[in-house]
Every structure is written in C-alpha cells, then in structure tokens.
C-alpha cells in the first residue's frame, strides 16, 4: 500500500515561491493561471497487509507530527492499494 501526502503552506500564509512561479508564467505569456501554490509531495510505501484504518491513523499522525509544521503548513493525503 502507498500513501501520497501533499504538504502546502496554509492559504493564509504568503507563498513567495508560488508567487514567483505565477509571475514567471505571466511574463512568459501562459494564459489563465489565477494563482500558484507550491508544496511538497511525499510517497510513503507501507508494509503490506496492514489494516486500512490503522494505516490511515498512522499516516495522519506522521503527516501532522513530522511532515508539516502546523504553524504554517497543512496537508492532504490519499491511500492507494
């Protein structure tokens, strides 16, 4: 089983990298991009035959306690068999 975890800055926090990318896209004449937020992506490969509920809880714990800094970041994740 794999867990895909996406970490981004909270929407209330300024994202200078995202802003820079957006600015560059605009200068390069790419159309229709309203905003860019950038972040990190983690792919966790989990041991086989784990209970899905337990995996969920553990992945959330890892994401909350290690992969993000709750002051500035938030996360989303999905599990895949």
């Amino acid at each position, binding site marked *: 089983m794999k867990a895909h975890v996406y970490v981004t800055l909270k929407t209330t926090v300024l994202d200078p990298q995202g802003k820079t990318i957006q600015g560059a896209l605009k200068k*390069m*004449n790419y159309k229709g991009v309203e905003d860019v937020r950038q972040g990190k992506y983690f792919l966790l490969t989990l041991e086989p035959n784990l209970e899905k509920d337990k995996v969920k809880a553990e992945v959330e714990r890892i994401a909350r306690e290690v992969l993000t800094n709750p002051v500035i970041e938030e996360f989303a994740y999905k599990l895949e068999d």
Partner: protein
Amino acid sequence: MATQSLQTPPLPCRATPELLKTHGITPEEYERIVQALGREPSLTELGIYSVMWSEHCSYKSSKVHLKRLPTRSERVVQGPGENAGIIDIGDGWACAFKIESHNHPSYIEPFQGAATGVGGILRDIFTMGARPLAVMDSLRFGRIVDRRKPPAAADRGQATERAEVQAQSSSYSPARKLRGLEAKKLIHKNHSILEGVVSGIASYGNCFGVPNLGGETKFEECYFGNPLVNAFALGLVRKDEIFYAKASGTGNPVIYVGAKTGRDGIHGATMASEEFREGSEQKRPNVQVGDPFLEKLLLEACLEAMQTGAVVGIQDMGAAGLTCSTCEMGARGGVGIEIELDHVPQREIGMTAYEIMLSESQERMLLVAESGREHEVFRVFEKWGLDAVTIGRVINEPRMRVLEHGNIVADIPNTSLTDDAPVYRRPMQPWTVPVPKDKPANAPLGANPDLTGVLKRLLASQNICSKRWIHEQYDSMVQTNTVQGPGGDGGVMRIKDTLRGLAMSLDGNGRWCYLNPKLGAMHAVAEAARKVVCAGGVPVAATNCLNFGNPEKPHIMWQFSEVIDGLAEACTALGTPITGGNVSLYNETLGEGIYPTPVVGVVGIVESIERTATPHFRSPGREAILLSAALAPYDDRQLGSSEYAKEIVGSLWGEPPALDLKSEAALQKCVLELIEKGLIESAHDCSDGGLAVAIAESCFRHEIGAELHLPEGSEPLEIALFGEQASRVLVCCVPGDRQLIQQIAAKHTIQAEFLGRTGGDRLVIRRGPSDAVSVYIADIKNVWAQALECALHSDVPERVVPETLDK
C-alpha cells in the same frame, strides 16, 4: 575472501568499432589494452580503461606540457599527483588547496553541476586530513545583457552605434549571428545557467558549512555554450597529520564509506552495449546529484576516523569513482587491491559490475585501515550514521582485481591504468588571432566630452559591476575565521590560535590569452598574486585550472603550450610554484571553442592579521598614491584588449598590456613592505576598467569621495583613465607618511605618484586644469551595485519555453 588468481579470466567483450567508439578508445589504444592484459578485455575492463584513459583522468594530451611547470619550493610539502597540493605555512600548520573544473556538468544541469563541483573539491581537501577553511569560485558565462539594449545609465544613440560596430567585429561566438527573439532566448538561457550555478554553489557550500570568499565572475560571448565553473578550496591540516591516497600493508582491509552507489554519471553511450538487458529500460540519470548534508557528515567522520590512527590511506571517489580510487591507491603504494562488488553498498537494484565500477555517485570515499583495527573506523562511521563496509583488501600483486559473486570481472595491472596510460604529443600549429592589430578607425580617442558617462557605463558593465548579488547568496562568515570576505581584491582567513592568516585570490583573463596566450597567462599569475599582495599576503604557491577547446586542433594545442610557458615563467618569477590543479579540454560547442582560459589561484601567507589591507578608502583627508612599475608606454593597441574596447567601442583588437615580471615582483615587494610597516590604509589592484574604475571602487564601501589629479601626460584621456596598464596599485595613507612611502617605493624602483586627497561626496578626476570625471559617489555606486541584479531581472522574454532551449 580468497585470492582467486587461478580462476578463469573474465569473458572478453566483442570489441566492435562501435563499442570502441562509444568508449572513446582508438584501435591503437585497444591494442595497448590487449598487450597490457595479455588477452582481450571484458566489457567491465574496457569501461575501466575507457575512464582511466580519458582525457579527464589521464591528462594524455596535456601531460607532456604540464611537466614544464615549476612545482617545488621549500614550502611545498606535496606537489601535483595527490588529491590536493600542500604547503607548509609555519607554526606546525600546513594548508591543502586545489582548483578544479566542473564545466560540462554545469552546462547540462547548472544547479547540480556546480553543487557537485564544490562537493568534489571539498573532498579532495579533507581526504588529505585538512578541514576546509574557505572556498572560492571562478565563473564564466555567456553575455547576460542584450547588446542592442543600452544599459540603464547609457545614452541610446551611443548604444546603437556600438551594436553596429560589434556586428562587424570579429567576436567569434555564434551568438552574434542571432537576432531578436533568438538573442533573447540565448540571454535568458545564460541567465538561468548563472542563477542555477550560483544557487548550486550556495546550496552546497552553505549547508556543508564552509565560507565562500567570492572569486571572480566574467562574461564573454564564447562561454555561452561552455560556461566555466572552476571551484577552489583550501583547508588546514597539522603538518604531521597529513593523509595520503596510498594503499599499503598486504592484507589490510579496504573500506568503502559514505553514500551508496547508484547509476549517477555513467555515460549514456555505454547503454547501447549488449550486456545491458537487465533493467536497461530504467532511466539512468547522467547527472550526479549532490548531498551536502551527507558530505558534512563524511567530513566529520573522516577526520574523526583519521584521529584513531587506524587509517592507512584514503581517497575520494570522484571522477571514475571506485575504479580510480582502487587502482590509484594501489599504484601509489606499489601494491594491489582486490574488491568484491557484492559488498559495495548499492542504492539501485540490478546494477552490473560495469555500472558499479564506473558510477560517479557523490560523497563516497575508499580507505585502507590497519588490519585488526577496522572496528575503530566502523565505530566512528556508525556514530555519524554512515555506511562503512569492508569491500576488499590490499594484495601483494600490483593489480586491481574486481570480483562479482566471487567471479573475476576485472583483473588489471595498476600501472597500465595510471603511469603507463597513453601520452600524446599532439601536433601544434602557431596561430594568429583573427582580430585587427590596430584600433578601428571609427573609434576616435581624445574627443569624448562625457568621460563621466563612460565611467558610469563601465561600472555598470557585466565584468566590472559589483558581484554582490552572487556573493550575498554564499555564507562567507561561517567558522568565524573570515578577515576579508568577498568584494575585495583577495580573501583573507585567519588561522585560529595563531597571529597568522592566509590570503587567496583567483584570476584569469581569457580575452587576453586569446590575443596572446603566453602573455595572457603571465598576467593571470601576476594579477592573482597582486591581489593576494593587496590583501596583505606574501604569495607562496599557486594552483591552476586550464580550460581549453579541442586539443586535437593544432592551434588549440599551441595555445595550451604557450599558456604553460607563460604560467611557468610567471610562477617562477613570482615565487609561486604550482602544486596541482586540473585540465579541462574539449570546451567546444558546434565547433566553436572558448577563449583559452587558464584560471590561477594564488595562496599567500599573512604574517599578522593585524596587518592586512582592503581596497576601500577608510577616511576623508587621506592621500591617494599610485604605485606603478616602469613599463613601455601603454598605447592604443593595448587598449584593444581592455574592458573599454569591449564595452564602449564594442570591438576587440591589438594585444594585452605589456608585462615585466621583474618589475611586477618589485611592485609586490613594495606593497607588502608598506602594509607590513602599517603605512597604508588601503591597497587596490588597478585592473579591469583601469585607474578610474579602481579609484571609484575604492570610494564605494564607505562612500568617501576623492579629488585627484592624473599624472601629466600626452596620451588620450581615455587611455589615462581606462587603460589597463599592468603592475599598478592604488594605495592611500595619512598625509604625514607620503614621503616615507615614496622613499620605500624608490628603493624598490617603483614609481609613487601622489594623486590627491580623499573626502567629500564626489569623485573628481582632473588632468591639468579641467575635470575629466566629476560625479556624486552615490550616483555611480548605485549603478555599479545594481547592474547585475537589473540585468538578471529585466528581461524575461515574451515567450520562452524552457524545453526548447535545451540542447
């Protein structure tokens, strides 16, 4: 592990012409391999020969010439041939230093290319037991300013005229043929190479924790497809604690430490070979990726392991990775090494023997430990969380023997890979540079009413403007030893617990070497040494990085040979033997080569860090004095090689400035005496942009103006202000000391011309009664300080899709 000499030799490869070609092995070289082995090589063996006999590792084209360089002095502890050169700097201390190129990788992937360049040179230093004290870089890129666009401060009419002159001139980069969008794309590409290289250097060095003292950054069209990234590093080691890359003691364990081996850096061409079926569908990255955090751990672990006394010899796995370290350590010690690849820590699955031996994965070392004391080494690496695995042992026979699953896959006499590698005496052909000897008729001198405007344009030009944007991204202060960081003539580091310091500087001038390779190379040494002197260091040794085009072209080989002669002469005259360095050939794209570009790093000893100098005027009311060696008059032919000719006239002609090494040595001695006696407050080498630029640069740091008179003369004012006459240093002193300074200068047969006083918020330069330059310091400082940033941020082209730019 038992020696398996009775085993059958490895399966021979099918040496088709294509296979040899992809390995860069000529049919004659193949014959040599067969002779050395007494049989046909296996594919792994062919790969091993191919990397060890490559230009990069064997120096086969340059070796015969490099022998002419001076490499010895009382201070030299270790000359060329080791991981780095070492000199004795007194008080029981020695310093290891070297410069190395990472040009090609930095073009392919600027960030990682430059980062791994820094990583490689740092390993060369700490492999010798030295803790890295400072790094510097010499960088060269294609132009980053659209020539058709006038610089911010310049007059539009002039700029247009300049562009026309340039179009007719003999600049030989493909860039000049491009127009409009093409030219914009090219500039954008140069911007991204520059930004990538700088952030790569910053990212690696900052994380590793070594201060970067700057270096030099130059721009010429010819570096567009061949940026030069030459990284210099220097480290300190107790003289009795130096380690060498030499194996000894039959039966001693050979230990692999550091990062795991992946497929990084294996040449793509080799994938075509038939042996690669398993896993060949996987993408094999050619770009090495650096891990500065791991390198920092490796540094601490290696230095700590060396302290145990259990380490016999150690070598970095750099270019040609495991292959190079295995055969070179054996060869240096007159012994052999046998390794079993099954024990090599691997990052990827299914790697072949060929791949493991040729991988250029970063942050790895090979060390030989004393038999029975391995555990002391393991304990240290375990503490730092690093892999350390015994992969083989030292054997009696002078061979490199490689086993995989117990079967021999390579069994090669060491010296056939190292000392007995092919050496070529390539044909040379003297060459006349295809530029006019004389100044173009449409560039009159002596009639320009706006020399202040010219000064502004020069200060804003790519080669002269402040490189603050670059060096502010580098940590220049970590380790708390930095006495003089980036932005001066030379960097100065103190040696803790002593009064002493080390001064260092990098210099090169490809344009001058293009016009006259020998004279240009002499200038590179003279200027690097002069910059060290201006910082207060006595130059004692040098390292060089020789960047050239294709050595199979006779005129390139001639340039190379001339440059070696120039370096040899200047290093001998100035007392700076070459203790090592690196040669980078084949810097060509589509048949267009770079300027011959030797880059010289000079290291000097500062006897007391209380007695150093900076280029900056420190107070008003001081007297500015120009120290200069007596030389033949600087004429308008020599002006053709200047930044003035390049930026203002937009053309290249003539020859580099004259240089007299004896006078240069006298000037350097004179400046050192003045600094040592505490008579001068600032010292600044007059180089790019001439005296006017040197004066302006001295004013900037503390925003102190000056009112100065040029020496009387009949030469056009452009030459007096912007001519780049060699062997000149601008100094400043308190008024009472002028006479003493003039006496000391006279003793050294150096002219000391009083120019005027510092003070005020304006820079005024006069000759006779009239002002040649008159401007507020704040105005020109701003132009100078902002130019690079402005150039980089001004022009993102309307539409550039990155992929289309990649070659």
